[in-house]
């Protein structure tokens, strides 16, 4: 035959992958440096399709990187900086050991630093790519900006994170890009639409963290290093698109805020004022007209007309959504989360203020008569001011998610709040839809909330709250009870009848059911004849479907039981009162 002997594992997928240790040796880096490089360059392990082939016949658990990725890392200029840094640390240690303080000073001044600009450009060749990957960056920066200034990581990093996040929030406010907000038990989720890309981030509630010990802060710091660079460039570009100055400056003459100088030093006060989120930003050049460019009307085809119509409606709805709080004046009490609420209200066009002693940037006082809503999170309000609504903070969140100003009655202070639903869930057919969601959908369609049971419930709730015309209600209730009893009797009779051996020929019924049943049986028989592999797949799919239904049913059942329990409780209370 002749020819060279073919050796195993010298071609094919075995040559495309490299284990982590081999990659590290190839790059001549320590594990920590390798890790940092992978994080910065966005290199991740790959799971080969045939692990045993790649692993040269062994089944040991190994992490594989793509050889191309590693070769790509070989040309990275940052690797040299890492080596420089290693040398720097060695020299510094030596100088410390010899107590040569001048040398220490000099070395520290010449500490090697690296820039990540080229990596950002490389990982995100277009701006849209960067926006698509912004979720983690934002969440991480928001988390780091809440860290204490001592301890876990460099102060500069924390300050930078704070600055960048505040800049981003200001951009969202100015561009009115916020779409959805959600109060979860983990934190507050926000969803904004930035240049058509949905961006979701989560901020923790404003409490101090108790730092876990089993978390490697070096890894997080490396990620943050990358994310701050990314966010900085993204912010710059976003500000540019809106014609805003970067670094941001507040609108209005400077000499006006003379009294705030006592509050903080000049360098800090600008960031503080910016982070108050209450004033708008200065533009590079004042636009002549605020009007957005009108969409040109295209002559619609017959087919596309409906689509166009839908799109137009959607656009209009969005415009209305953006101006949700326009014309409203809010005042935040000191017990509500100021930053979150100020951000949300401002990004839907409302005016917001707070107590002057609470934070810098308050624009009007509590006594201002033009305030329309005051956000309160305490049960009692000693002297309510006439002419404004006192609402709990959930009203703002639910209104934003519902895309309309919800009726404020359900959100008065001290009232049992309606459930807060996640705006991120879109129920498909067959999924469980909570009744509150149905109510909201009805409201959105413009219907008044009102199938019979709900109105009854509301009435009874009002009843409890005011203690007004009880007797009428009682009579009503009694009447309904009588009706119920009558119904029950009929039901019982039916039951007892059903137990007796009765011959009821359901001929008509059967005829209607027969084809259906035949069909079902044919299907069952066909399922019997399926091949083993297909049967397995089929069973798996059907199992998943059935599980979904089961879960939905379970939720519905739970809800029903809960509602019944609540009703029974109410009745008992009423009886006790009577």
């Amino acid at each position: 035959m002749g020819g060279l002997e073919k050796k195993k594992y010298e071609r094919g997928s075995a040559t495309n992958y490299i284990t982590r240790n081999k990659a590290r040796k190839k790059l001549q880096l320590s594990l920590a440096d390798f890790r940092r490089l992978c994080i910065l360059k966005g290199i991740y392990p790959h799971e080969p399709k045939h692990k045993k082939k790649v692993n040269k016949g062994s089944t040991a658990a190994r992490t594989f990187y793509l050889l191309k990725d590693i070769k790509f890392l070989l040309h990275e200029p940052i690797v040299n900086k890492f080596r420089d840094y290693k040398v720097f640390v060695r020299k510094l240690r030596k100088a410390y050991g010899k107590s040569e303080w001048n040398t220490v000073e000099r070395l520290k001044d010449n500490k090697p630093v690296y820039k990540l600009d080229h990596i950002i450009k490389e990982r995100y060749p277009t701006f849209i790519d960067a926006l698509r990957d912004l979720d983690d960056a934002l969440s991480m920066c928001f988390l780091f900006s809440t860290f204490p200034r001592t301890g876990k990581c460099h102060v500069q990093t924390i300050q930078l994170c704070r600055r960048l996040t505040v800049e981003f929030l200001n951009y969202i406010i100015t561009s009115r890009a916020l779409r959805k907000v959600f109060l979860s038990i983990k934190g507050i989720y926000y969803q904004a639409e930035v240049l058509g890309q949905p961006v979701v981030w989560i901020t923790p509630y404003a409490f101090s963290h108790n730092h876990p010990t089993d978390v490697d802060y070096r890894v997080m710091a490396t990620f943050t290093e990358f994310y701050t660079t990314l966010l900085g460039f993204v912010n710059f570009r976003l500000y540019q698109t809106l014609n805003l100055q970067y670094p941001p400056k507040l609108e209005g003459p400077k000499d006006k805020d003379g009294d705030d100088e006592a509050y903080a030093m000049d360098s800090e006060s600008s960031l503080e004022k910016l982070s108050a989120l209450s004033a708008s930003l200065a533009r590079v050049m004042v636009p002549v007209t605020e009007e957005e460019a009108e969409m040109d009307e295209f002559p619609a085809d017959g087919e596309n007309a409906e689509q166009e119509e839908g799109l137009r409606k959607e656009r209009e709805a969005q415009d209305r959504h953006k101006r949700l709080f326009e014309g409203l004046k809010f005042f935040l009490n000191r017990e509500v989360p100021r930053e979150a609420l100020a951000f949300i209200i401002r990004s839907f066009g409302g005016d917001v203020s707070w107590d002057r002693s609470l934070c810098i940037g308050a624009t009007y006082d509590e006594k201002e008569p033009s305030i329309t809503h005051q956000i309160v999170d305490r049960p009692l309000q000693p002297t309510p001011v006439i002419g404004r609504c006192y609402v709990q903070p959930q009203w703002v969140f639910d209104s934003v998610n519902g895309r309309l100003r919800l009726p404020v009655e359900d959100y008065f202070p001290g009232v049992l709040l309606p459930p807060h639903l996640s705006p991120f869930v879109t129920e498909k057919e067959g999924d469980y839809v909570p009744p509150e969601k149905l109510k909201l959908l009805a409201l959105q369609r413009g219907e008044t909330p009102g199938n019979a049971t709900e109105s009854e419930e509301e009435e009874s709730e009002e009843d409890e709250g005011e203690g007004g015309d009880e007797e009428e209600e009682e009579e009503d209730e009694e009447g309904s009870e009588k009706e119920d009893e009558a119904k029950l009797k009929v039901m019982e009779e039916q039951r007892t009848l059903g137990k007796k051996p009765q011959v009821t020929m359901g001929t008509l019924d059967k005829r209607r059911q027969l084809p259906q049943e035949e069909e079902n049986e044919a299907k069952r028989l066909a399922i019997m004849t399926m091949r083993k592999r297909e049967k397995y797949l089929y069973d798996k799919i059907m199992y998943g479907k059935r599980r979904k239904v089961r879960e939905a049913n379970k939720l519905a059942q739970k809800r029903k039981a809960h509602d019944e329990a609540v009703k029974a409780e109410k009745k008992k209370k009423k009886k006790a009162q009577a």
Partner: protein
Amino acid sequence: MPPALADIRNTVGNIPLEWYEDFPHIGYDLDGKRIYKPLRSRDELDHFLDKMDDPDYWRTVQDKMTGQDVRLTDEQVALVQRLQKGQFGDASYDPYEPAVDFFSGSMMIHPVTNRPADKRSFIPSLIEKEKVSRMVHAIKMGWIQPRRPRDLTPQYYDLWAQEDPSAILGRHKMHVPAPKLALPGHAESYNPPPEYLLSEEERLAWEQQEPSERKLNFLPQQFRCLRAVPAYGRFIHERFERCLDLYLCPRQRKMRVNVDPEDLIPKLPKPRDLQPFPTVQSLVYQGHSDLVRCFSVSPSGHWLASGSDDHSVRLWEVNTGRCLKTIPVSGVVKSIAWNPNPAICLIAVAVAESVLLLNPGLGDLSATSSTDQLLSAFSPPEEPARQPVEWQEASAEEHGHGLRLRICHNKPVKQVAWHGRGDYLASVVAAAEHTQVLMHQLSRRRSQSPFRRSHGQVQCVAFHPSRPFLFVASQRSLRLYHLLRQELTKKLMPNCKWVSSLAVHPQGDNVICGSYDSKLIWFDLDLSTKPYKVLRHHKKALRAVAFHPRYPLFASGSDDGSVIVCHGMVYNDLLQNPLLVPVKVLKGHTMHRDLGVLDVSFHPTQPWLFSSGADGTLRLFT
């Protein structure tokens, strides 16, 4: 010391003296003559005498350089003694004499040296002055500037000013972008709808689960108002886990199976198009008080004979469900078979260790009488051959019950099967040897054991409907024997654990067998010895299978209480494979002692199906 002796010294220099060991001399004198070593012929005795006589013996040593004996002087002895004690060699040396400091630590009023200071220490250095002036000049000119603190605040600019969407640097087609985190659902709300809160049991179950197995990674909670919401303890953890996922988690592109489950179901001809087949239960034959293990339909299709565990054989009228006769037998009826010859009215019943031949006396009188005539026409041969079994005539009392003949085996009989013409009868005996299958000839009352060797325990046997073949099913295989040539024709491998039953297609080219591991195996004898198709329709063990003699139907009864009727069309065209379609699942028998249906059989002419079950009934499906 004499001068001649004193003159002797080492003239060889500093060389190893071993070189001279074998010579009598050591070196040469000035005249070139050898210097001889002193004679060393002294033995131990001489040494001893010297030791005794010579008082200086102890201080005499031999000089290795010259070979002379040297007597040590007193000073030398003292030196040796001092060295031995570890003292200094020099006796006059005092190691402990008092130390005298040259320089004391105390400051003295006078300098140690009285040299006046240099002039240059008072004059400024010219070189340094030059250096300083150069620096000053450089500062003046602005060449040297104070070190500015480094600006560490990052500078941002428009990074994507010239973006090139086609430049995908360093990315390849294997790149898998990181999946986004799942968005929160209603359960994560601080004030979720009440149905999303976990009940007590669910909460306990959640706590007992491994953190990685939990469906929700948090406990849904409800808070009255926003003020009451605490900090989430695992916030940093979750961000950290996300980071780990991003850089440590191997990524793989997986294709999601996006199949409509309806597409997976094979398209079969509609059962409606394959009619007739039995669809509804129309009659129940009640009367037996125990399991009905077996039954048989008469060749005319009017009568039914069933054997049960309650030690009786019952005869039924098919159309009415009436029990016509009950014949008590001495044991459990294992198998029953009606003679297929329509001219003869005879039933073979396997009870305990014997096969009974009954004449039920039903139907056509001529048939019953001709049967009796046939049986009585037998005249024993003059010279009775040795037989493995014993043929016995029935007693008068038994005759009244209809019993005509009794074939006594010495082992329990499991099954009986008639040959198509009705003269031959095969019986299966539960024995370990080769005599498991016995063939009986009715007309000559002769029996023989056709096999010389056993191939495992025989489960059941069946005759080929048209050719002289016998199918023998053992536990794991199915053998086809040619009866005339007396040889093995084929061995079929059903690939199942334990064959339970066997049925032959009326045309004889197809065989089905049921197995206890709930499979029904269809063999096409023309195709191969491997199964043509394995049908796993039943959930439990198959007990019986049957072919319809006319219609393309076959049925299987199982322990799960159901009978499945399938359409099994065999085409005359050899190129077309049989078409097997299940058409009906018949349910009716109730489960009893984990047993469901025990036997199934078709009506000889109608598309009707009989089944017998563990609940003591027979059912007719039409």
